[in-house]
């Protein structure tokens, strides 16, 4: 026997993987994949948690914050029309001391949608202190003057969908450019509100066509009479009549406004070329011709 130090089997080197087999390599590869997958999943979870803490955490209210009194710090008012925050505060009775958690957002929404000028409203809270109010307003195409039960004059506006509403915050100049409506009767609902007028989308189309194609002529239009137009375009006698500052009466069929406006433009061009200014009416409601009336058919030409 030699004098070398005793050797235990545990002193022999272990961990030599060089002499491995296909089966072992496959198992090791699967383990690596499994470990990597789990690591990635864990990282994703930790990352998501960290993200929620550091980035999204500010938008997540703490429970104790919710339980405390939180006044409305900011009101964000979004509209596509002319209403403003001053009107909003007055309408919904909001003050800087109002507790945001006590606000009934559904009640505010109902209040706003009861205003004729507002088609749709949405109200939301962005805690801890922001109230977001978003509204979609009606766009007026005509104006009207009527009287209430006590005989007082009421100025009203009519939207493209026939909604009749009291215009709020509109600039006077903008309202002055709108023609009046005539020849209609306002009907009221059970709650006292005025029911929408039928056929206003057709009238609005006529006005829009005229405003685009003949802005100078359109600016002289003062009254749109729906005396012969109930909103039903299929009626053979349906007519829309316009009173203007230059021509006493223009008559349109409630269809093919492009064609009628084009014909009107030709007639006016012809009349101006003839230097006549005494046109009483132009009836464009006939299919392929127009009837032009002069104050003096054989009268002098200017």
């Amino acid at each position: 026997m030699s004098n070398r130090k005793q050797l235990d089997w545990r002193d022999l080197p272990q961990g030599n993987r060089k002499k491995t087999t296909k089966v072992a390599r496959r198992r090791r590869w699967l383990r690596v994949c499994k470990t990597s997958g789990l690591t990635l999943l864990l990282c994703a979870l930790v990352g998501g948690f960290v993200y929620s803490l550091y980035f999204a955490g500010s938008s997540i209210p703490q429970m104790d914050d919710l339980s405390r009194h939180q006044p409305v710090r900011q009101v964000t008012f979004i509209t596509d029309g002319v209403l403003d925050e001053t009107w909003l505060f007055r309408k919904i009775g909001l003050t800087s001391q109002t507790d945001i958690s006590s606000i009934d957002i559904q009640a505010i929404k109902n209040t706003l949608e009861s205003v004729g000028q507002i088609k749709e409203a949405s109200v939301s809270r962005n805690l801890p202190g922001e109230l977001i109010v978003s509204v979609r307003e009606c766009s007026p195409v005509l104006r009207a003057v009527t009287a209430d039960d006590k005989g007082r004059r009421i100025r009203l506006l009519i939207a493209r969908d026939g909604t009749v509403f009291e215009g709020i915050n509109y600039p006077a100049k903008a309202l002055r450019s709108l023609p009046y409506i005539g020849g209609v009767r306002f009907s009221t609902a059970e709650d006292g509100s005025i029911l929408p007028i039928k056929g206003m989308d057709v009238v609005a189309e006529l006005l829009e066509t005229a405003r685009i194609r003949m802005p100078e002529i359109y600016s002289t239009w003062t009254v749109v009479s729906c005396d012969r137009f109930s909103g039903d375009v299929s009626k053979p006698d349906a007519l829309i009549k316009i009173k203007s500052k230059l021509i006493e009466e223009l008559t349109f069929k409630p269809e093919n406004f492009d064609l009628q406006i084009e014909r009107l433009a030709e007639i006016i061009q012809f009349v101006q070329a003839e230097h006549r200014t005494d046109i009483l009416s132009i009836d464009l409601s006939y299919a392929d011709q127009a009837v032009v009336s002069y104050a003096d058919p054989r009268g002098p030409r200017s």
Partner: protein
Amino acid sequence: MSQKKIIGAVEIGTSKVVVLVGEILGRNSLNIIGMAQTTSMGVKKGEVTNLKSASDSTHTAIVAAEKSAGVSIDSIYLSCSGRHLDGFSTTGKVAVSSSDNVINRADLQRVGEMARTKALPLQRVYIHHILGGYKVDGQPTKNPLGMAGEQLEVQYWNVNADQRKISDQLHIINGFGIKVDDMIISSIASGCVAASEEERDKGVLVIDIGCGTTDFAVYKDGIILRTGVIGVGGDHITNDLAIGLRINYKNAESIKHRFGKAIVDSSDKNDTVLLFGDLTIGDAPISRSSIYKITHARVEELFNIIHNKLGSLISTQNLPGGIIITGGSARLPHLCEAARQAFNVNARVAQNPAWVTNPELKAPEYSTVIGLLQYAMTAQRPDSGGRKKKNTGWFGKMAGIFAGN
């Protein structure tokens, strides 16, 4: 909170590789949750002769066992066998250091180190240092700690092996990507489960007859007195049948399993049996007497070798617990009777413990792997000089055998 560990018990045998997967909860709960076995390749007489083939079959078995268990193995307990295993007894003797002659832990450690530090020849490594008992002033004692005396003596049975053979076995497991937690010789592993505590106290010889080798261990007073390996196993019987009956090895194996007996049974020795049994071409009658004679001769030879190796240890006085035969060849009919004739001591075939509920694992050829798992539960990682934790009870005693203190 109980700690869960998944242990793999691997036996790389001559005929098959068996892997059991055990789930160890705490220190007292062991569940066998997976099992697989494959035909062994590249192993002869319990020794690795072709590393690649042996690795292939072992890794396939481990993967199959993991699949059946549905978990990955954390560490491996590996059995070890083969003719390269050897053992020798050493004695350490020290004077008790304290002035009042009371033996303390330092004395035990000193005497243990003295007995275990015998240098080995080149290319040999220790596998186990098995405590063989203490003597205080020449009087045997199991636990001398606190006893008064002037001289403390200890005896060890040191199992050692060929370094290259052990390295090959380690590389097979390491190639799979797992380290070997502990290595236990097959005779001790199977002895753990084959013999009861009472039998080990009384004295018992456990013989594990495998395909290529036969491992044995002698117990007395609850400790292991002697272990050994013989390069003769069940395949020798098959080989002799093939030569003696002039049939091929495969048919000889079949004959051994169907008609083999370890003694010459006079009741039917004049009968003949058919080689295949289906009267196909090549089927031929074979005398039962020839089969019995060949089988008996080999079994008798095997037992005689063991008898010669153990000498006076084989006696009714030394082995009141008798002889317990385990391993795959323990199924050979009348093997116990042959053992009784050879050793003149009672013999029985091992039965695996009642906690092994799987009927397949009840067979004696699985004693070694079950013993490995049982050992793993007892001792998670013993080192050659002692254990990290003091164990009590049956398992503790088992572990203490190896601890040496």
